[in-house]
């Protein structure tokens, strides 16, 4: 009794069934099974199974090479078509470039607003801490007693600094303007890893109450605008509303504070804690300190710090209520503060995900405005693609014969659609290349005509390039959709019998037959082309078409001489297949 050969693993067999191997399925499955059986006897079933999976994977990968070759051929065809019709190519590229360029320019602005990295050291480690009050408002401030608790108990988990943004009337170099700035801790710059372009950043001694005034670091932009990059700015006295300070340095270029893009920081002043010097006074409780910014210590996760914060907040609330109980005489007042304390929470936000640090729940661009802008520029692209699609459809009429021949030779609708779409994507890529130049120009104009204090540095980075390529592919597919649908509807028999073949307009001839296998089949190998044409004639005859083509032997050139094909035919050099088919269809040709 013979033993049954081992079978390959079921999963492998299923995966093999799903592989796209067209007409090779039968022999491929048998080949792989053969290999498995041979290996199972020589190297064991387990190793044979592993090799079987490797083989299945290689069979899966096999069609990719074929697709790549098809894609390469289609792209070459697209480039050839572009070269043949330079006027059309230039017109299409310009129209598409406008659509793609405007979209890319808008995306580069959005990219800068939403995805640009903070110009500080390790921004992934940073987080902001807020206070959510009883009314549900989120504020970038915390109570001093809570910050003290954080400082004392959270040192092992994170370092902290604080900042508080405010617009003040800043008088410097004999000019007064309202400028946004931040009161900050003296460790602010070291904490963020930001240095000074000239002078120095803030130091621990700058916060001393005994120090004359406070130390001020100005932004590079402010230094350029107000002092025209004069190093003599260092040491000058500035006035912030009623207080005076001394400029000690200029922040490095590109650093515009931990704020939103619309209100970049122009100055940083020490003394944030001096502003709440009366912290020791217990009542009233409306004094706050600025918003804490934390940097997680190595190995500490965001979630771990949140867990620590939850415990700390609970204990801090309890301590606070116990203290208030002794300090507030009125039961009604105490109840009010108890409710307020119970409702207070301290949400944490990752710095990399917070584009509006002083208003974390605000939107950097109002949703309606953003949607409107996106809709308008998308419409521009859509109009451009619709225009090009129309032009391609018009050109598609001239390519009916080419499509018909390809379909007659066995190309499916999907393959033809892929070809036409690849051609249009190549065209869109040409448009995209010009579009990038348009986008670059638009971004340059945007930068030139926006206020210098605008905090967004719009640049064309890799994300913008990826977007532009995606836009090109999207536009190309959209543009190619209409010609692909048009090609799918081509009536092969009618197109071939009408003699509309080739992408070039037919030459004028004194006597042109309705179907000429010499002309119609010039793009294909002789036997296949001839069979195709004759198949078309045969089909027309079978469908009751009028036998109106003159015999090939009777075709004459304009000069009246016999054609080479006619000569060959008279000399009996026609392939036997042609003779056979002609014999079959009687007097049609």
């Amino acid at each position, binding site marked *: 009794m013979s033993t049954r050969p081992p079978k390959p693993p079921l999963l492998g067999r299923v995966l093999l069934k799903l592989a796209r*191997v067209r007409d*090779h399925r*039968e*022999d*491929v*499955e*048998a*080949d*792989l*099974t*053969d*290999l498995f059986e*041979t290996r199972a006897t020589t190297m064991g079933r387990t190793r044979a199974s592993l090799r079987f999976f*490797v*083989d299945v*994977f*290689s*069979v*899966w*990968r*096999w069609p990719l*090479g*074929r697709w790549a070759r098809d894609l390469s051929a289609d792209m070459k065809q697209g480039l050839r078509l572009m070269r043949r019709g330079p006027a059309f190519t230039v017109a299409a590229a310009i129209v598409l470039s406008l659509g793609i360029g405007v979209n890319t320019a808008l995306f580069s602005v959005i990219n800068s607003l939403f995805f640009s990295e903070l110009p500080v050291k390790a921004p992934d480690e940073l987080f902001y801490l807020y206070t959510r009050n009883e009314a549900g408002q989120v504020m970038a401030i915390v109570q001093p007693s809570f910050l003290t608790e954080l400082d004392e108990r959270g040192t092992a988990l994170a370092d902290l600094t604080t900042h508080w943004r405010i617009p003040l009337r800043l008088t410097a170099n004999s000019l007064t303007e309202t400028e946004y700035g931040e009161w900050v801790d003296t460790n602010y710059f070291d904490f963020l890893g930001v240095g000074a372009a000239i002078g120095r950043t803030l130091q621990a001694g700058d916060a001393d109450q005994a120090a004359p005034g406070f130390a001020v670091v100005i932004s590079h932009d402010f230094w350029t605008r107000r002092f025209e990059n004069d190093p003599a700015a260092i040491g000058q006295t500035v006035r912030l509303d009623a207080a005076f300070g001394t400029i000690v340095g200029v922040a490095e270029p590109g650093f515009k504070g931990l704020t939103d893009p619309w209100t970049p920081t122009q100055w940083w002043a020490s003394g944030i804690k001096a502003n709440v010097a009366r912290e020791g006074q217990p009542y009233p409780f409306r004094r706050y300190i600025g918003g804490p910014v934390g940097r997680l210590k190595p190995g500490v996760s965001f979630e771990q710090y949140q867990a620590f914060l939850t415990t700390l907040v609970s204990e801090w609330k309890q301590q606070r209520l116990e203290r208030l109980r002794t300090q507030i005489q009125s039961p009604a007042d105490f109840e009010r503060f108890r409710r307020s304390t119970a409702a207070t929470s301290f949400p944490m936000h990752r710095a990399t995900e917070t584009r509006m640090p002083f208003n974390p729940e605000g939107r950097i661009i109002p949703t309606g405005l953003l949607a409107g802008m996106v809709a308008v520029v998308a419409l521009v692209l859509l109009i451009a693609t619709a225009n090009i699609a129309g032009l391609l459809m018009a050109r598609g009429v001239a390519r009916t014969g080419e499509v018909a021949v390809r379909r007659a030779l066995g190309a499916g609708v999907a393959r033809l659609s892929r070809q036409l779409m690849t051609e249009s994507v190549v065209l869109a890529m040409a448009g995209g290349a010009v579009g990038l130049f348009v986008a670059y120009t638009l971004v340059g104009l945007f930068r030139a005509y926006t206020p210098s204090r605008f905090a967004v540095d719009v640049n064309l980075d890799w994300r913008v390039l990826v977007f532009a390529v995606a836009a090109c592919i999207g536009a190309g597919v959209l543009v190619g959709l209409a010609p692909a649908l048009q090609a799918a509807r081509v009536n092969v028999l009618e197109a071939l019998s009408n003699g509309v073949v080739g992408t070039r307009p037919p030459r004028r001839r004194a006597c042109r037959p309705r179907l000429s296998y010499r002309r119609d089949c010039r793009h294909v190998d002789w036997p296949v082309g001839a069979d195709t044409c004759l198949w078309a004639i045969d089909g027309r005859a079978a469908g009751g078409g009028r036998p109106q083509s003159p015999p090939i032997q009777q075709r004459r050139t304009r000069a009246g001489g016999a054609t080479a094909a006619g000569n060959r035919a008279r000399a009996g050099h026609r392939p036997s297949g042609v003779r056979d088919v002609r014999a079959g269809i009687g007097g049609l040709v």
Partner: protein
Amino acid sequence: VRALGESTYGVPVQQFVEQATGRRASIGAVYAALERLEEKGFLRSEFSEATATRGGKRKRLFSVTALGLRTAKELRRVREQIWRTIEEQS
């Protein structure tokens, strides 16, 4: 293909390539190469008769065309010429 006789199929080719080169060759890579050679007209393929040993499944038998053979000989000639030139120079 020619080294394996008048006609052969994927599995022997894959095993032959592994033996000859001493390196693993995936069956998919062998199929891809055979397909490309067939597209170029260097090989032709046809299905064999179904046999009971493969569960009734046919083999796709490949054989070398005259063009393929000519091209292979030409390649060999060119290679030998190049090596001769190298040897003469060294």
